[in-house]
């Protein structure tokens, strides 16, 4: 799967004009800082059925995070 990062900004005041010389600084503001989005540290399985198979085989319970639209954005 190919992923290309694209950054989108939202400002509540003046329109944001990101200039090439300040791009890296702005990207750092927008993206998560280390330790900020800790849920992203978990190796989530994105298939309920495959997760169930693994849980049964390994003798573990499932911890299911569900939303209308996949929380990690796969849909």
């Amino acid at each position: 799967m190919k992923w290309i990062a694209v950054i989108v900004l939202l400002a509540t005041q003046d329109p944001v004009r990101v200039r090439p010389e300040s791009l890296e600084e702005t990207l750092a503001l927008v993206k998560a800082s280390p330790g900020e989005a800790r849920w992203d540290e978990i190796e989530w399985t994105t298939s309920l059925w495959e997760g169930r198979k693994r849980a049964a085989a390994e003798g573990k319970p499932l911890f299911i995070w569900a939303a209308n639209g996949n929380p990690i954005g796969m849909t």
Partner: protein
Amino acid sequence: MAFIQKNFIPVVITVHGECKDAEGAFWKSFCKDYAWITGAAHGVTPAGKILCSDAKRSSCGGRSVCDPRKVYQRWLELPEEERRPGAVKVEDLTEMDPAFPRRPAGSLLLKGYNRPLERGSDGRLKRMKEYRDCQELGKNDSNWKTFVEPEPGRIFLWFTQEQWKSILPREPRPGMTVPLPDPVADRMVRLTLLNTIY
């Protein structure tokens, strides 16, 4: 996070309540009438026994998040024959509901992030400490909620093969800049903001 990773099989999904296949049936088996409710986390055994419900509340009844340590304690209290590896037989999923959305073949997914920013007194951009967002655009638009130190939202733009081939040069190179049609740029930098900032 390490506790969840070590003791559970962590699964993240779009709600499966409408799926007409074995996976959807499994989801409904423990979520029952609440299968459509979203934004929650559930503790469940491979057999479909919910581990974080009580007499008043289903594990799927509302935007609740199970306490993983309480869930795991309930798991340990189950009989050994329910917990041992291989106690539950799960067959391969041979047929999936064809109505479940799939990624188109040859498509390109763009991953992005967004976060509310504001200008400081020095004119420089900075992260907002608090952000107010209307959660449900109902007739009164009154369900406003304040998010403290909101983390970045994630966006994923799906482009079909035909779409991305129509906007990318035939021989793209790193660092190359190409103009985008206005509707495409509008979709990428404005429409993706909808419901992704929390």
